[in-house]
């Protein structure tokens, strides 16, 4: 399988990348690691006329503490996040979830900005990021703006990102020793989750239970008013709209959402370090 023809643009700075996006509009797609985009292009499900390769822009890969938050450069690859000491100390759910993405070869290429921009409801890192809360920092022709993570994913492959904007950073709260867990149900080792649940600090997010990753709001509200984990987890699928495929029908996905939420909450409440 061979992608359709395209022109490759290789900006040396974020400003140059944004200028290319302004110039080419929706004819252009951003290329980072390419592990979501290139498979789509090989299947000709995506045929952009221009690819803007941001992987040569210096300074987009970092993890650092800034005040109460951890700032992660959009170009940080999954394997870098997986092994990052700052992330392990300040927001340990992220390195663990990064280690659950695909396989080592995929993690050597894929970036956090790419998986956030792609908005696949079955993505691991967006599920964890949604549970964490925080901010997606994007840059467009008129400068930078912050988009709350809770408002970023609008649906299947749909985000709040404008076509002339580039994700430059993800900011999440430092969770330190707060309990966390990520429970991912797959048929085979390196599959996408059929359903997954991320829990951290009383918040829960679910993968593959709607057109985008979603918060389990009924569960969170129940926990906030003092319900037990079992009671709260039994509400995890409320308000979700899972799809059906050859792996699981809707009822089974709802069952998994409740089960994985309970396991994640129990693990998060029990031993903060036990999930790794």
């Amino acid at each position, binding site marked *: 399988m061979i992608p359709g023809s395209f022109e490759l643009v290789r900006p040396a700075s974020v400003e140059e990348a944004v200028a290319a996006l302004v110039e080419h509009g929706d004819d252009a797609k951003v290329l980072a690691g390419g592990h979501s985009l290139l498979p789509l292009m090989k299947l000709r499900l995506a045929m952009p006329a221009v690819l803007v390769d941001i992987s040569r822009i*210096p300074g987009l890969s970092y993890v650092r503490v800034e005040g109460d938050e951890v700032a992660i450069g959009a170009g940080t690859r999954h394997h870098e996040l997986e092994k990052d000491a700052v992330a392990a100390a300040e927001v340990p759910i992220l390195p663990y979830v990064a280690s659950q993405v695909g396989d080592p070869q995929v993690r050597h290429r894929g970036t956090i900005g790419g998986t956030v921009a792609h908005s696949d409801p079955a993505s691991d890192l967006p599920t964890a990021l949604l549970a964490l809360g925080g901010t997606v920092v994007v840059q467009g022709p008129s400068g930078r703006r912050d988009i709350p993570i809770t408002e970023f994913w609008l649906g299947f492959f749909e985000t709040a990102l404008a076509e002339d904007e580039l994700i430059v950073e993800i900011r999440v709260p430092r969770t330190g020793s707060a309990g966390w867990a990520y429970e991912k149900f797959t048929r085979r080792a390196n599959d996408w989750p059929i359903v997954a649940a991320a829990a951290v600090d009383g918040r829960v997010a679910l993968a593959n239970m709607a057109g985008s990753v979603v918060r389990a709001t009924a569960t969170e509200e129940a926990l906030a008013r003092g319900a037990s984990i079992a009671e709260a987890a039994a509400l995890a699928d409320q308000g979700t709209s899972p799809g059906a495929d050859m792996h699981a029908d809707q009822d089974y996905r709802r069952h998994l959402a409740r089960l994985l939420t309970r396991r994640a909450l129990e693990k998060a409440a029990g031993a903060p370090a036990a999930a790794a």
Partner: protein
Amino acid sequence: MQISITVNGQQRTDEVEPRLLLAHYLREVCGLKATNIGCDTTSCGACTVIVDGLSVKSCTVLAAQADGGQVTTLEGLAGPDGEMHPVQQAFREEHGLQCGFCTPGMVMAAVGVLADNPDPTDREIREGLEGNLCRCTGYHNIVRAVRSAAQAGPAAGQVPQAQEVAR
């Protein structure tokens, strides 16, 4: 467009289409046919090569993305005198292959696993190779081979001719 890549220690410059995949570049342009294309969907790992010290699936990387970088294929593992790399030697000694189709990718992925972790447990070996499928299901001997290569010393995780690339 013009790209310059150091392939198995030899720098070369080629005129390619931007859409040319690294796997096709290695096989068709460089004539290096050890790198197999299996599933062509980033699943099976048969096309695994090392780019700038890290294992990648070359069916899902553009040749242009490796521009300026170092690529090592199975052909680049053995020494100039034909002496096999420790991982190749271990695959032979432990019979870590059956039909052989997955072997080039499996060997390159194994080098990547050992580069990352010189003394992996069996579980770490299996998880490290989770992106490589053997349709003969010869996994036990593959894991045995990787364990044996690790015991041979740190050379098992070294990629010949690879140099640190400033980013």
